[in-house]
Structure formats: structure tokens, C-alpha cells
């Protein structure tokens, strides 16, 4: 199964925002997480891979396919679930899925019926297949989007912020679905929810302001942070002083008290406890800036 290779991809919007700045990535088959804050350029990257947007420069290849030029070829094997999408409110799930199945090239009626049925069952929409899409809840609609994206077992599946706005149960269901898909294709999942990545992805990249800060496997990234994250309960007054002295990567509230995480090789001193790092710490370390070079270099070396 071919890799997706992205080379020197850049995009600047007319309003001056540098959405992508010389992005280089190699994405192997399996689930790939794209983590970053809002406005980091995730969606731009995803849409560019999904043939919906033109970069200013750079190249994207899926195996031997040139994604930017052979759009029609790419689309034959592409599944795309955008961050936001609508449906025709007066159409039933089955009808619209069937429509997209035709568009996806499943033209034999019998086959198409099977595909539609199997997808509706997989996404647990079989019982509501005759309902108008206008009556679907957010989670149902999201699953319906996955069903569309999965038509014809695409080799490249792009899923943009799929779990935003889902309740916990829906989110679990949804992630299960994706995990299943990850066995067969290149699946790119963009999210700003760290847990999504830690639970699902074999590889990940952290992106901010159009740059890749880190590219790694989640467990390796976490492993590399072992012994370098320290936490301490701080009062509001102390925090400013601490931020001057140490690399504070995150502060969060726990039962009303502020807990600061500090990145440092070796103990930063009195009152700090070593914590077992998690992916969130990786994310915040990368976001704090100090850390990008290290792992970014590793990622490049690896490729």
C-alpha cells in the first residue's frame, strides 16, 4: 500500500495568512493524526490533499499519483469527511448514500445495494435509513458522513475534525469505526483533541501556524518525554515568576488548584514532582516551541 508524500507544500491566503509553510510529510498506511490548535492550517492541508484546494507551491504524491495534477485519478480512491458539511434535509439517508455510491463509480445496481446496506449497518444507520436527513442528530450526521467517505473502500481517507461536537458515547462509536478503516488505507485524522490521537493513531504530526512542529509515533513521543515533565501546584501569584524561570508548557485546574507542567531535563527543584507524561504533554511541549527542533529533526531523519 503506497505512502502519501508531501513535499514543500506552501499556501498563503490573499489576506496574508500563511496557512502552510513548506510542509514536508510522509504518511504511511494506517491512522495518522494531525494535531494542532484552531487555525493551525490543518484544514487547509486536508483540503489540499483532498483535491479541493490549490497550493501555491509544493507537491503531493500518493504512490505514483500526482495528487495536484491527477485530481480525477485521486478522487477515485479518496474518501473525505470535511470538518463542516450539510446534507439535503429532505432526502433520506439511503437515497443520498446511494447517489454518492453512483458518483463513486459503483454503478451496478446489486453491488451498490450491498455496499449501501453494509455501510449503513457499519455506521449503525440501518434502522434510520428511511428517515429524512434533516432530522438527524449531530452524531448521526457525522456517521453518515463517514459512510459516504467509506464508499468503495478508499485508499486515502481524510477526516477533518470528526469528533468536534460529539457526545462521549458517539465519539467512542465513531473512533471505533475509524480504527476499523485504518487497517486498510491511509487515514488522515485532523483534530485538536489529543485523546483522539492517542487512542487511535499509529503516527502523528503536530502543526501550528502552518509549520510541522513534530512528527512521530505517539508512544515514542511520549516515551521520549519520560522524566522531563514535572508538575507543581502553584498559586496565581507564583505562576508569573515560575513562567519566567522555567519552561511552563501548560497550566491546568484540578479541583480548583492550578497545576503547572514544566519541561526540563532533570528536576527543576523544590516542590516539583515527576509526572508520567502523556500525549497532551507532548502536544504542549511542542506548542511551547522549545521542543520542535528536537523531534522535528527526528522526524526528518526518519523519513
Amino acid at each position, binding site marked *: 500500500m503506497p505512502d502519501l508524500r508531501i513535499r514543500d507544500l506552501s499556501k498563503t491566503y490573499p489576506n496574508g495568512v500563511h496557512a502552510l509553510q513548506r510542509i514536508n510529510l510522509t504518511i504511511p498506511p494506517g491512522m495518522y493524526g494531525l494535531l494542532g490548535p484552531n487555525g493551525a492550517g490543518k484544514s487547509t492541508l486536508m483540503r489540499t490533499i483532498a483535491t479541493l484546494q490549490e497550493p501555491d507551491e509544493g507537491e503531493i504524491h500518493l504512490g505514483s499519483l500526482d495528487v495536484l495534477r491527477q485530481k480525477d485519478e485521486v478522487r477515485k480512491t479518496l474518501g473525505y469527511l470535511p470538518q463542516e458539511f450539510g446534507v439535503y434535509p429532505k432526502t433520506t439517508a439511503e437515497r443520498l448514500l446511494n*447517489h454518492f455510491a453512483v458518483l*463513486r463509480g459503483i454503478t451496478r445496481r446489486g453491488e451498490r445495494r450491498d455496499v449501501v446496506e453494509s455501510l449503513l449497518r457499519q455506521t449503525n444507520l440501518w434502522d434510520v435509513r428511511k428517515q429524512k436527513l434533516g*432530522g438527524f442528530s449531530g452524531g448521526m450526521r457525522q456517521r453518515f458522513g463517514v459512510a459516504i467517505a467509506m464508499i468503495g473502500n478508499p485508499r486515502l481517507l481524510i477526516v477533518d475534525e470528526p469528533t468536534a461536537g460529539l457526545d462521549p458515547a458517539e465519539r*467512542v462509536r465513531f473512533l471505533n469505526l475509524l480504527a476499523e478503516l485504518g487497517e486498510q488505507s491511509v487515514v488522515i485524522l485532523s483534530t485538536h483533541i489529543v485523546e483522539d490521537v492517542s487512542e487511535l493513531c499509529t503516527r502523528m504530526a503536530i502543526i501550528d501556524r502552518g509549520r510541522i512542529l513534530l512528527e512521530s509515533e505517539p508512544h515514542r513521543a511520549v516515551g521520549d518525554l519520560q522524566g522531563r515533565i514535572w508538575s507543581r501546584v502553584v498559586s496565581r501569584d507564583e505562576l508569573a515568576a515560575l513562567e519566567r524561570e522555567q519552561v511552563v508548557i501548560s497550566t491546568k485546574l484540578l479541583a480548583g488548584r492550578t497545576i503547572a507542567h514544566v519541561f526540563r531535563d532533570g528536576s527543576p527543584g523544590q516542590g516539583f514532582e515527576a509526572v508520567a507524561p502523556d500525549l497532551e504533554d507532548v502536544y504542549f511541549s511542542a506548542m511551547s516551541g522549545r521542543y520542535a527542533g528536537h523531534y522535528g529533526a527526528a522526524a526528518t531523519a526518519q523519513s
Partner: protein
Amino acid sequence: MNFLEIVRFEIDYRLRRPYTWILGAVFVGMACLLAMKVMVGEAERAGDLHANAPSLVGMAAVLVSMLGLVISAALFSEAALRDDDTRMSSLFATSPITKTEYLAGRFVGTLLVNALFVSVVPIMLMLLMRPPFVKEELLGPFRAATYVQPAIALLLPSVLFTGALLFAVGVLTRRTLAVFATAAFVFLGGMMAEEYIEGERGLAPLATLIDPLGFVALSENWEFWTTHEKNTRPLDVDASLLWNRLLWTVLTGAILLFTRWRFRMTVPSQRRKGRLEDQKEVSPAHVSPRPSSRLFRASFNGRARIPQFVSIAGDSARELVFSRDFAVIAVLMAIMVLSFGSESISDDFRTPLWPLTQFVAGFLVSFLPALTMALLTTFYAGELVHRERSVGLADIADASPVPDWIIYTGKVAALGLVLVTLQAVLMASGLVVQVTSGHFDFEIALYLRILFGLKLTSYLLLAALAMLVHVVVDNKYLGHVVVVICHLFTMFATRFGLHHNLLVYGRDSGWTYSDISQFGPFLRPVLWFKLYWGGWALLFAVIAGLLWIRGRDRGVATRLRLARQRFGRRAAFATALAALIVIGAGGFIFYNTNVLAGYRTPFEAEEQSAEYERRYGKFENAPQPAVTGTKLHVEIDPERRVVDVRGTYTLVNKTAAPIRTIHLFLNPEVETRAVSFDRGSRVVIADDTLGHRTVELAQALEPGRSLHMAFDVRFEPRGFPNSDPNTSVVGNGTYFDHDGGGPVNHRRWLPLVGYQTSRELSLAQVRREHGLPPRPLAPSVTSSVLDSSSEKTAAWPETITFEAVIGTSPEQTAVAPGTLLRSWNDPSAGSGGRRYFHYATERPVRNTFAIFSARYAVHRETWNGVVIELFYHPTHTFNVERFAKAVRASLEYYTKNFGPYPHRQIRVAAFPRYANLAHAYPGMIAQAEATGWLTKVDERREVDLASMTVAREVAQQWWGFQVIPAAVEGAPAVSEVLAQYSALLVIEELYGMDMVRRFLWNRRVEYLTQRSKANHPEVPLLDVTNHANVIDNKGPLVMYALRQYVGAEPLNAALRRLVATHGSAGPPFATSRDLYRELQGATPPEYHYLLKDLLETITLWNLRTTAIAAEPAGNGAWRVTLDVEAQKFRAGGSGKETEVPMNDLVDVGVFGDASAEPLYLQKHRIRSGRQRISVVVNGTPARAGVDPHQLLIDRNWSDNLRPVIVEQLR
């Protein structure tokens, strides 16, 4: 101050968007262009009218507000729907603002923006309506009030009313379509109301009241204004306009209050009926991974494209068709057809016709349904182009493996399917119209050919354009505006000087369907034009496909780059094919229209007439021999549309001097192969382009001597013209004539002797454009041309003996004047044999004749030895009996009162509906398919115009062919006016006075209306030439008034004397003065002033009964006292009136119950000013007044009579 903040934000938001400015600029530009074109056009058309006359500015204001409806719809639908579309509603709904503030803020803000656009237009017009933009001579003095007044009285209130309506519809329905549909409805409503009231005058006040644009009120306002008044009088802000504005102000308030009441500050999805349907939440938290049962291979070969295409087309169309919006549209269209359909199936005089499929289908493709279809095409094109994006499915759909061109063509096909459905709705409604009128001969094939063949292609062409515009513009509302502008441009293309159909998208040479000749010569060129535009449509599709937006990039540069990328083999092939079609079909059309048929712009065609006059006008008074005999051999080949005429004229020198030089007009439309004389001759001038030939005889023709001239003429259409193909010779229904004064130039194929003044340009304005001096329409009645001792005989009509042998195809009958001497078949001639007819007249007739050939059915009967023959289309049997009866009654009445009928037969022949007229020839009448033969007569409520037309044409056998008018001013007074009057007498014989009054009532309204629209100065009845309004409308009013004053018998006696004096062919020919003299002889001297008023001058009266008192006078008698006001005016040509003292005899009448005879009807002397008249009547008076039967022409006739309220007086 939430309200002000919302208003401020709304205005600010709008004005900061380029879209608003583009919309505004487009609107102002279009509005100014259109207004100026119309104002200048009207001024040019109507000679003395100023382009900046208050009335024209008012008209422009109404046009601007009609155009403004599109802008208002775009602005207000956005105001109503923006917050839902952008999902902002919930934020507003949860803000601490009241719904009044919210709605009023949106409305007022938008209204102000809209008003800003609209008020720029009059200001721009003020600046533009002056030199150098408009020619100085077309302008009157500048008055700012001229522009300000309509803006305040019409334009701005209209914006308020329509804005409120559109906003309310938008807020309450949450549908853009509903808003645009309402705008279209108001637009059409205004137009239809205007149309409707011209037919049904009783509804005028209602229509005036309910038209929100004030269009009806305005046209009511000017209805009877003359040119002079239109130039000078400001708009009357009269009661009807004020009431209209008041009603709409109240309605606007009510609409806005209702909107406020119904509106809920909530998010739309919760308000919709579809509460979240109960979700069967069955999915467990854990889903067992279950791979797809089989692995499917998607197929992307060529075969997969078909299902993809079908799926896109089918699903899109289904989505649009199976929606509530569509159901509403379909119902509205059906209502439109059912309510206007039977109304509109009428001839040019609004007489209803039998609902034959040719008329019903004709209506279904006529202006109103076609405009509706065009608007819907525009709307649905926008919906389809923006469909995925508007629901947010675009990203998913765009990432699907479907080529751009499949998506695009699929959507075009979907639009096609929607249009087919709409046409089917129209057709079904048409069938219902037929069934409800009891007509069951449906001719489905004809429906299909017209609706789904010819017209659907036009809509598809428009669809291709609309789709392209929507793709390129990439904004739904702006797209609609641009398409509508394209549409307006094609409608008004000729005003911009684009006459050739190759230059205006979607135009073709036009067609008319006739039951007799079917599509005749129209179909072939139309199909070529369709092919040509089809090529363009294909090109549009290619461009749209290349520029189709896929994905998120919408910048121009990216789109162009993508287009270059997409331009592959397929696009190249399609472009090449389109170019091939455009060049091939276009070239073929150009070869036909311009090379073969010799296309000329209207100006060039006029220029030819001008050049003819400039070069050969000097021969106008050259003495010429007169034609006294015509012998023809005519071979008609209907299938090939070819006619060969070999003929001989006998020419006699009726002047006092020898004639050496003969001038001929040889129509350039036909090929005149040979012209020869029975003596030596020499061609001096041979101008084939202008059709003039001058021949010098070797030996002069002495006075009183004759010579023969032989000629050979061939008519064969070459290629096809840009428009109006020659319809004289068609497969079935050939009709061509030779009429020196006839209206249709191209029919005069045979050589004409002498310089032809009838070819000269006549309209003063047109003559000026071509640098020709003004010219009277006809020689003055006092001029020397009438001096019979003069050598100039141009004014003398010719009389000839006529003989013709006519050959045609064996299944057709040829009809010509005279007695049918013989008819025979020649099986050996031609391919399928020929049939020949030999006609000859027994006595000299006026030199005007026609030849017909068609598969006729014949009705034959005799009356007092005169054979009455009706030649009609076999299925058009509706009025054959009625015609026969009318001919009989006419012959009977005219013979008794005017003198004997000179021929042994009278024929009425039908011809296809290419012209809707009836025309008389000696012993013969040409009656168009749709005038008379198919009229649906309702004797109880309407006038039997079928019989009336025939009676009028029969009367021309006396007035025109026995009393032949000299070709000078006033000629129609002797022919047309008397014929019309005679027909009125026949109608009175057949149906009684009631129908005559109905007829005259229509004529009166028509006269006063037309008088106001006339494009040349009005003249008194005695001086008419081509003044159709005076002839057709004032003529019968005047003659009927005379008849009521003088009595029928004395008048008939006068006419009888006219026939006796002038009845034999040959000089002295009659003039209107001869008629006047006879009328004076028949009129008692006390009425001579009236003759002068009615015939010699343009006189109008204003008679009014202001008060009535009635008191019992004992024995059941009553004394009725009337207060009467009177004025009398003399009008100049352009309508400038001067009051003259009045001391006239006018009827004063007192009436009892409506049906009874008048209690009192006597003539009284009525003076100018106020006066009191008192009469005693036997019986209870109900109504009383002055001139109760409206014999005198009075613009306000409704105040002549007043009801007598007796109770009050007791």
C-alpha cells in the same frame, strides 16, 4: 436604541460590500439606459412629443420601479434570510432585542439602501436627458419638477410598498424563491392589469387601486391626453392615484404588522414542522468491527459515466420537482393559463376565438408564459449551480470521482427535465382550457411540436446561458440580476440597433403556425437558427465546465489556471464541434439571409425607398398611359413556392398629349424576366436594385390610342430572410394581390406603370432621418391634380378589364375575380398533373385584384341571381353560415338603399393567419383565418364582429369599387368610413340597436385612447389619408351621430345620390368634398354647424349634468329640473384645444326604469356654461341628463347622466 443600531449596522454592512455596489451600479446603469431608450424612442416615434415630457418621465419612473423589483427582491430576500443562511439567527434570538426592533431595523436599513439606488436614477436622468446624450430637437424645456414629482409620487412609494411585501414574504416563508416569485407576480400583475382593463373597462377602477406600482393609475391618467397635454401637463396626482397610494400605505402597515405578529425570534429548524423525528437510537457504544461483506471494485470506465450523469440529472431534477415550491409554481402557472388563457385567445380586436390548438398552444408560448418560464429557468439555474454549496455538501461532492463535465452536463440535463415538467404543466392547463370551452379536437402532436419542439429549445438555449452566467458570476443573487439583464438586453436588442438575428443570443427568424399552411416557410430557417445558437450553447457549456468551481478556490487566477488544466482532449473536441456548428450554421444562415435574400437593416430598407424617391421622384408628374386591361397566365407551384406570371397590359393614353416615355416600377422582390411592347422601344433606365425602368417608345402613343405591354414575372424566394419570410406563396393557402394602394409592399409583383408615390417614406420623422423634405400624405383635395383637364392624372385610379388563367396543383382551388369561365385538369402537366381555372370580369373594375390557391371547402348559394361563394379551410366551419347570412343581409340592404350590385358573384376566400385582416377586391373578399372564420361570437354580450367585418367588405363593393375615391386627401372618408357605416346599418338590421351601441361604445374609447397615442397629428374626418384612428374609430361615431340627428333615410338618400353621380367607372372620381356636399344637401340647415363640427374640424364637447331636481306635477307626472354645464373645444393636430362658444342642439333625456323607453328625449339649445332645463314627464324619472346616447364626442361621458333620487325630494 437597538433599532437605530440595527439600521446603522445593516446600512454599514451593505455599503461595505462590493456586491451591493455592483448591484446598485448595474441597476442604475440599466434603469437609465432603459428609461432613456424608451423616452427617446417614444419621442422619435411620436413626432411632436418631447423626450423629457412629464408623461414620458412618469412612464420611465414606472419602468424603473418595475426593473427595481428585481433589485428589491435581491435586497429584501437577503435582509429576511441572511441570518438564517449564515446561522446567525440564534445569536440574534438570544440577544435582548425585541422582534420589532430586529425586524424594523433590518427592513428600514434595507429600505434606505434600496431607496438610495432608486433615487439616483431620476438624478442621473436629469443629467443625461440633455445634449449631447439626447438630440436637442427631441427635448422640451428642462424642468426639475418633471423628475422630482414622479420620484416622490411613484418611485419611492413603490419601493416602500414592494419592499414591505417582499420582506414580509421572505420573513414568513424563509424562501428566496417565494420572494422572487412575489416580485415576478407584482411585475406581471401590473402588466396584466393594464392589458386587462383595456378589454374590460368596468374593472379599471379596481385595477387602478390594486396595482402597487401605480402603473395603471398612471396610464388611466393619460389615457385620453393629447400630445400637447403630454408635453406640458405635469402628472395629475388625482384621486385615483392618491387612493392607490393611500390603500398601499395602509396595506404596507398591515403587512408589516402581520409580519411582526407571525414572526418568532427563534432558530428556524425548531420552528419548522419537522421536529426532530424520534430517533431510534439503537447503536451500542461498542461496534464490532465488521469489514464489508465483499470488496467492491469501483468502475470508472466510460460506462460508469452514464449512471453518474443520470444520477446527477435525475436526483437534482427530482429534488427540484418534488418540492412544495414547485407545486406552488405549477399551480400558479395553471391558474395563469386558466385565467388569462381563454381571455387571450382572441384576435387583434380582442374578439374571442374558438380555442383551437393553434391558438391555445400559441398562447402557451406567448409573452407571459414565456417570461415566466424564462424567470424560472434563471432561478433554477442558480439553484442547481449553487445546490451543493448552499446545503454544505460541496466538499464531499467535489471530492467524489466524477469529472467536472459530467457534473455540469448532469445539472444542465436536470434543468432540462424541470423545464420539460413545466411545459407539461402548461400543456395540461391548455387542454383544460380547451375542455372547459367545449373543444375536444386536441391535436396533441401540434402541442408537442410547439411546446416541446420549438419553444423548449428556446428555453434550453436560455438555460445554457443562465447556467454559464451563474457559474461565472458565482453569486446566486448577482447571477440572477445578470441573467435578467441579459434577458432584457435580448428583448430590447433592436433598440440598441441590433437587428440581425445572428447577433442576439437565442433569436431566430420567428414563426407563425396556421391550420391552413401549418408552419409554412417558417420552420426551416428557425431550425437553422436553433442549430446555430445550439453551437453557442455548447460553447457556453464548455466554458462553464472549465470555469466550474470545484473545491474551495474561487479566485479568478486560480479558476483560470484550473481551466487551462482542465482543457483536455474532450474540451478541445467540444470546442471544435461548437465552433464548427457556429461557423457552419452561421455561415449558412448568413449566406441565406444576406447573400441570397439580400438582408437589409430597417434603416437600409428605408434608405432604398428614399433613394428611389431622390432618383426618380422627378417622374412623379410625368404623363403616363393608364392600364385598362390585364390578361394573365399564372402558374402556381405551391410546394416549391414558385409563381410564374405571364401577362399583357392594355395601356391607353388618356391624357391630351402624346406619350413617348413610359416609367415602370418592376418590384425588385421578384424576377421580371421580360417587358416588351407591341411597338419599337428602347430601355433608357434599367435600375434593378430600386426597380425602376424607363422605356422610350420608338413611336409616341397618341392621345386616346392604346398599346400592349407583355411581361413575364417569376416569384421564387431565394434563401431565407432574417425575419418575416414571404408568406404569399405557401404549400397550402397562397394569397397574393395586386393592389396599387395596398399595405403589403412585397405583394405587388406585376409591373406598375408610372413613378410609385406609395413607395415613398411617409412618416415625417423617418423622412427627416433620410434627409428628405416633408411631404403631405396625399395631394390636397383642393390641388390641381383633380383638375380633369390637367395632364396630371396621378390622382385618377384606373379601371381595367381583368382576365386570368391560373394553374395550380391538382388538389387545390384557385380563386380570382370575375366569372369562372372554365376549369379543367391537365394530367400531363407537371409531376402530378395541374388544375386550371379561367376567370374573367364582365365589366371594368378598379385595378386591384388578388389570387388565392388552397385546398378549400366551398359553400355556395344564390341571392337574387348573385352567387355567394365562401372558400374556407375544411375544418373551419364555425362561422360559414354566419358569413353567408351576413353577405346576404348586406347585399339586400345595400341594393335596396344604395343601388344595384354590379357583379354576378361575390366570393369570400380564407387565407392563413399571417395577416389578421379582411380586404376587399372587386367581387371578392380576402378574409384571414383568424378574423372571422374562427371568431367565437357571443351575440348577447358582444358585437358580432365576424358579420360586421364581412358586411363592411361587402359595402366596399359600393364604397371603393363603384364610388371610386380620387387618390387625394379624404379618400378613406368616401370608402372606409362609408363602408363601416353601412356595415353598422346591416348589424342594426340583424341584431338591433343595442349591439350598435355596444360597438360605438368601444369605438369611442378606442378613438380617445388612440388619439392620445397617435404618432402623427390628427386631422378632421374630411382630410383623412392613413389616419386609421380617425377612419376606423371616429368615422362610425360621426356617421352614427349624423344619422341620429338627420335620420337614416335622408342620409341613405344622400349616399344613393353619391353612387348615382360617381358610380360608373371613370371620372369624375369622388372626393370627400363630394360626400360633404351630398350630406349638406340631406341635412336641415339648422344642423349645418354640426356637419362642420363633426367632419370639417376636430371638435370635442364637455357636457355635464351637475344636479337634478324632480317634483311631482300631478297626475303621476313629474317636473324634472336639470342643471347642465357645457363647453365646446376645437382641437389642433397635436391636441391643443381652444374653447369656442357653443349654442348647439343637444338631446336632453329623462328615463324611467332601465329597460323602458325614454320618458322624454328632445333636442334643446345648450349654450356654453351653466344653464337650467326644466321638463315635465309622464312617469317616475330614474335618470336624466344631457346627450344621454353620447352622440357628441366627450372625454368624460360618464357625467352626462345622473340618477334622479326621488325619495329625497318628497
